[in-house]
């Protein structure tokens, strides 16, 4: 970071729903303050102005799904001093990664009448599987307070304070009642990365793991518990294949159940 001028912020998008970068605009109270500390040099959702790199901080949303993406991310990496991936798409391939388990050609034909026009790679993969990443902020969508923490940490030249323990810890810190124990509602909280503030349990539903795997998920043990609560192997395959289907721990367990089912 240079001392003389304000550091440059760039926000990039790959295959995604735009929700994570929208989180930045959703920082209604902090947005203008952020724009004073960081020069918004490239942020297409917010500005038509495009200032050339290099960039001090790049936030990357979305997963890599085309050959062009592959090249673009390399260029972005070269242009970025500190690169942060935001959201499930960028950190694990996102919901698009469901295609990784199937045949893309068949997928295309479900959506498009003339699939041969569509250019796409066979897989949807995280940013880190292609370039070096300085920090990953998980979540589908990310939590805007955590995003601010990441930006602050960058400005203060420190590691962001983003705990990687389970959603359960947040759930209990917030004084919520465990839905799995109190009503037998299957919940993925114990294997899911904290960050959302345990919103689902707070609304009486089980966590569906949109924040991806926590630091040491015991997916086998939790699967057994789900089975006791009535989940089938098929259900378990689906449950681990949502917004972070290609995150290593979830990928492994869904394949395990899929094999067992056969």
């Amino acid at each position, binding site marked *: 970071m240079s001392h003389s001028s304000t550091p440059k912020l760039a926000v990039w998008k790959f295959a995604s729903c735009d929700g994570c970068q929208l989180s930045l605009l959703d920082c209604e109270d902090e947005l203008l303050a952020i724009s004073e500390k960081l020069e918004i040099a490239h942020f297409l959702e917010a500005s038509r102005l495009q200032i050339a790199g290099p960039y001090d901080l790049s936030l990357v949303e979305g997963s890599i799904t*085309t*050959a*062009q993406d*592959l090249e673009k991310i390399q260029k972005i990496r070269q242009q970025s001093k500190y690169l942060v991936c935001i959201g499930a798409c960028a950190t694990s391939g996102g919901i698009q990664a469901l295609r990784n388990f199937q045949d893309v050609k068949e997928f295309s034909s479900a959506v498009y009448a003339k699939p*041969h*026009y569509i*250019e*796409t*790679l*066979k897989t949807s993969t995280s940013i880190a599987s292609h370039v070096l990443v300085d920090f990953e902020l998980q979540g589908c969508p990310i939590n805007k307070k955590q995003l601010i923490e990441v930006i602050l940490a960058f400005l203060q030249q420190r590691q962001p304070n983003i705990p990687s323990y389970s959603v359960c810890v947040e759930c209990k810190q917030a004084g919520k009642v465990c839905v799995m124990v109190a009503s037998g509602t299957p919940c993925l909280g114990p294997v899911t990365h904290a960050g959302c503030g345990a919103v689902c349990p707070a609304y009486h539903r089980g966590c569906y793991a949109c924040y991806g795997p926590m630091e040491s998920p015991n997916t086998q043990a939790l699967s057994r518990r789900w089975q006791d609560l009535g989940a089938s192997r098929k259900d378990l395959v689906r449950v681990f294949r949502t917004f972070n289907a290609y995150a290593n721990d979830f990928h492994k367990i869904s394949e395990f159940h899929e094999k067992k089912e056969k």
Partner: protein
Amino acid sequence: MHEAHLMKDLINKIISISKENASCKVTKIKVKLGALSHMTPEHFKEHFDQVAVGTCAQDAVIEAQQAQDIHDANAQGILLESFEIEES
């Protein structure tokens, strides 16, 4: 059109290289069409002929090979492999 732009890009490249080599006639062009380039050799020829009118590549023979590998990094592109010129 997508194609028109690609062709333009190609022909410009060919013209500039042949100029460098002091030639004004291109006789043969070899390209590889990526598996995801959405272009068949016929398709390519048709479009290429359109843009080549009036250039040094006007009468060039086109050898277009369709690639099959969709995982190739260049699967979506059109690769100009080589071309032949007549030295003046």
